[in-house]
Every structure is written in C-alpha cells, then in structure tokens.
C-alpha cells in the first residue's frame, strides 16, 4: 500500500508553546501527482512544509518518504534523498549570477564542494546543464545577470530551475505564484505542469485557478487540521470548505 505513496504522514503534530499549528495530520501524496495543500492564512501549511523537510521538529507523529521513516533525518539528508523544497519568500542567492544560482545546486553531485584548493573553473563542466535548465524556465537570456536585478516573477522561475537541478523525486512548492501578476502566474503554471512530468509535486497555493487546473488531489487544512481531501470537484462542493475557505472566492 505504502508503495503508491511517495510521502505519508501519520498523526503529524506541531505545538508552539501550547498552540497547535499542525494538528494530527495524516497526509498521503501519491506518486506522480500534483497534490495541492490549501487553506486560509495561518492554517499551518508552511509549518507543515517545515516539518516535512525537518526545518522544524515535529512534536508528535511520523513522516514516511518512499515508505522509509525520515522523522529523525536532518534537512540535509532529506534533500539528498530527493525531497526538495522551495520557500514562500523567494529563495535565491541574490548577489550571485542567475547561472551561478543553478550551478550551486548542480555542483553537489560533482563531490568537490569541500575542495577549497581547486579552481572554480572546474565547475565549468556544469555550464551546459545549467544553461539547459535555464532555457527550460525561459531564463536563458538572463544567465549572466546578477539575480537581485531580476523581476520577482523571474526569480521564482529561477527557484524552480534551481530545485529542478537536483532532479528531485518530490518537489515541495510553497505558494509559487504568490505576489505575481496575471502573466507571470500563467507562465509559472505552465512551468509547473511541464516539470511535473516524471515527478511528484506537493504545493501550497492560494490561487484557485492554479489549483483547479493543476492538481490531481487537494488537501484542505483549517486551524492545523485536515478539513477534507479529494479531487477539486469533490472538495469544492464540500459545504464546510465553501464556508471556511472558498466561500468568498469561489463562484
């Protein structure tokens, strides 16, 4: 059974000084799916991501990745196993070039990242692959730009390219279209669709248009607990959901 699921949590709980931010969450993410995690602000979505990638330690509960218990693994090990996250606030290396951002991710598998005596020219073997990744997210023209000078939407695209560089089995995206104009949202949406081939994506997303067109399955969180779960059609008909979350936004 657990073979079908890339990621599974059992009674995942996080308490902050008596306040329960994530409450007994049982989440199952099926291999190959785009799985959306939605819910009002403060519902515990980001905290959930922090738990899954061990940026926070769960108070209780178990996390299984490919059936393996990773509840006590370090964030670094989890990334190495193939679960890579992005952040709600854009996560780039602002004063490095766009190309260097992607190379940082690619560089790990060369196994020379502790070699302080080697020239950084030895990293040039990664340039072709880095360029490929940048082209994939339409950033080829920006390769030599210092990242901080790019518009916001482009930075988020760069984040995707950097995450993709690790060829993760499971990508966690925290509000990838947050704060974007309409055109950027469309572009990022297509990007996510494109890169979802051959991998699993778990994403937090507020934009219901994005959620409805991309996701295979949706989990709704409210005050830290799972309100309901299912495909969009089902979830969007649920009266609790309509009231708690979609009521104001959904037609």
């Amino acid at each position: 059974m657990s073979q079908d699921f890339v990621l599974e949590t059992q009674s995942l709980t996080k308490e902050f000084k008596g306040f329960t931010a994530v409450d007994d969450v049982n989440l199952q993410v099926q291999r190959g799916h785009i799985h959306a995690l939605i819910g009002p602000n403060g519902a515990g979505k980001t905290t959930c991501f922090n738990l899954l990638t061990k940026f926070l330690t769960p108070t209780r509960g178990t996390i299984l990745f490919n059936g393996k218990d990773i509840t006590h693994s370090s964030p670094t090990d989890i990334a190495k196993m193939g679960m890579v996250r992005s952040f709600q606030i854009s996560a780039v290396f602002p004063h490095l070039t766009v190309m260097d951002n992607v190379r940082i991710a690619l560089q790990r598998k060369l196994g020379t990242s502790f070699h302080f005596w080697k020239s950084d020219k030895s990293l040039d073997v990664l340039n072709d692959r880095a360029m490929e990744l940048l082209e994939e997210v339409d950033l080829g023209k920006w390769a030599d730009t210092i990242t901080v000078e790019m518009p916001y939407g482009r930075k988020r695209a760069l984040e995707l390219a950097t995450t993709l560089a690790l060829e993760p089995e499971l990508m966690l995206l925290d509000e990838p279209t947050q704060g974007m104009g309409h055109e950027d949202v469309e572009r990022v949406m297509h990007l996510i669709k494109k890169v979802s081939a051959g991998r699993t994506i778990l994403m937090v997303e507020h934009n219901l248009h994005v959620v409805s067109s991309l996701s295979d399955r949706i989990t709704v969180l409210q005050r830290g607990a799972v309100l309901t779960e299912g495909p969009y059609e089902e979830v969007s008909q649920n009266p609790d959901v309509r009231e708690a979350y979609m009521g104001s936004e959904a037609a």
Partner: protein
Amino acid sequence: MTTQTLDSSAMDKSVSKNRMLYAVLLFLGLVAPLAIYPVFLMKVLCFALFACAFNLMLGYGGLLSFGHAAFLATGGYITGHVVMQWGVTPEIGILIGTLCSAAMGFVFGKLAIRRQGIYFAMITLALSQLVFFLYVQAPFTGGENGLQGIPRGELFGVISLADNMPMYYFVFAIFVLGFALIHRTIHSPFGQILKAIRENEPRAVSLGYDVDKYKLVAFVISAGLAGLAGSTKSLVFQLSSLTDAHWHMSGEVILMTLLGGVGTIFGPVVGAATVVTLQNYLSQGPLASWVPVILGLIFVICVLIFRSGIVGEIQKFAKKNFS
C-alpha cells in the same frame, strides 16, 4: 538586463587587468624594503595576513568571530616554544604553530558554529578569554614577560634570518602564500558554497548542503592562517606576549577588516596597513596616549559613513564612474 551582462571579452579583460594588478603589487612588495624600514613592513604583512584570515570568516562565511586573538597568540607561543626548546628550524616552527592554531580553530568551531550572529561572537569571545587565562598561567608562555629572545634561526638550516632583509623576503613569501590560499579558497567550488550559505542559508540547506560543515572548514582555514600570522610575527620580533592573546587584539582585527573593507580581497591588507602605520607614527609623537581614542574615532566614522571600508568605497566609486 544589459547593465550586468558581461560578455566573454569583458570578462577576459577584467581577468588580465587583475593579473596586471597582482604583478605590480608583487613587484612593489619585492622592492619595498629598499625604501621602507623592513621591520615595519614585516609588521604590516603579519597583521595583513591576520586580517585576511579573519575576513575569510566574516566577509565570506558571514560569521563574526570575536576570538581570533587566541589563534594569533597560539601560533606565536607554540612557534616560540618549539624553536627555543626543541631547536627546530624556523619553517618547521611556523608549521607546528600554524597546525596548533588550526586544531584550536577546530575545537572553537565545533563549539560555536551552530550559533548565529551575536551568539557566535560571544562564544568565540568566551573561548578566547579562556585561552588568555590559560596562557597567563601556563608555564611555557613565560606569563607576564612572554617568550623573549626567540631566535630567528636559519631557514631550512641554511639561510640565516638574523638580518632583516632575508627575514623580510621570508615573511613576504609566507604572506603571498597565505594570501594565495585565501584567494583560491574564495574562488573554489568550496568558496561557491560558502557564498551561497552567506547569501541564503536555508536555501543552501534545502539544496542538501550541510552548512555547519562548510562553516567549520572555513573556520579552521581562517584559524590556521591567523596562527601562521602569529607564528611569523613571533620570529620577526623574537617575542610572543600576552598582548596577542588579549581581546583587544580580536577587536583590532575587526577594526582593520572593517576599515579596509569587509568581503573584499584587498580590504584587510589596506586596513591593516593603515592601522599599523597610524599606531607606529602616533605612538612616537605627543599623541601617543591618544592612539586608542583616535582608532576608536576612525572606527566610528567608518561604521557610520564609509560602511564598505576604504577598498569597498573605491570599488563603488570606480564602478560608478568608469563602467
């Protein structure tokens, strides 16, 4: 977007410009003792290396150590001790001193690196104070008197360093080696990750980098090079004393680095030269007792107005006007 795009010919041009600069500086370093008192130059070089080592940690690792005096002093004491007691040649003495400082750096790093910002600074300060009191008590440091009359000895057992000229070229060679190592470290695969960690630590973690290990390696290199500076200095002045272990020294290296420009490769060299020159000239005149006040004022002005330091401001100016 075109403003920041470097085409490859512009890149080549800046590389060859850098080469020219290094060649000129190397030449100046070689002829300098013909015009300037070599002992003064050696003092500048030792402190410049010390500040460069410190800068690797603050400017590229993003960690402010307030305990680098411990490494400077350890290099000096150990080198002085083994040269005097075991009679080893100067290069072996320096090597042993450097390794001991690096080992101490490993211990400090292990204890401090998990902490960030002010906590990191406080733990390194506390540890270096521990080392200071250890050196006050330990028999091999000579207590308040320090180690005096350390022989400069013969390089490789052949070349006498008793005269200032050969000593100068030996010190210059050490400085160039240390500087080259720092330069390479910054421009290495390791340096790339270090920069990534400084830029966005959580992101580096999420990409699978064990950031504490990278910081630890940087700290050990930094401590080792600070020790190299201390070891060399103890042979130049034939003296190792508690002054080097005092927290004032940890503060002074911060001043030198900030004054010159943190995170720039030449900043610490310029900062060290400025501070040492000021100390030397002022301490001979009527302002002698005002030296700490003057340095403090410079520090305040630097922090308030010239935030990127001398070299940083020059770079900014050049970028604005010539590119």
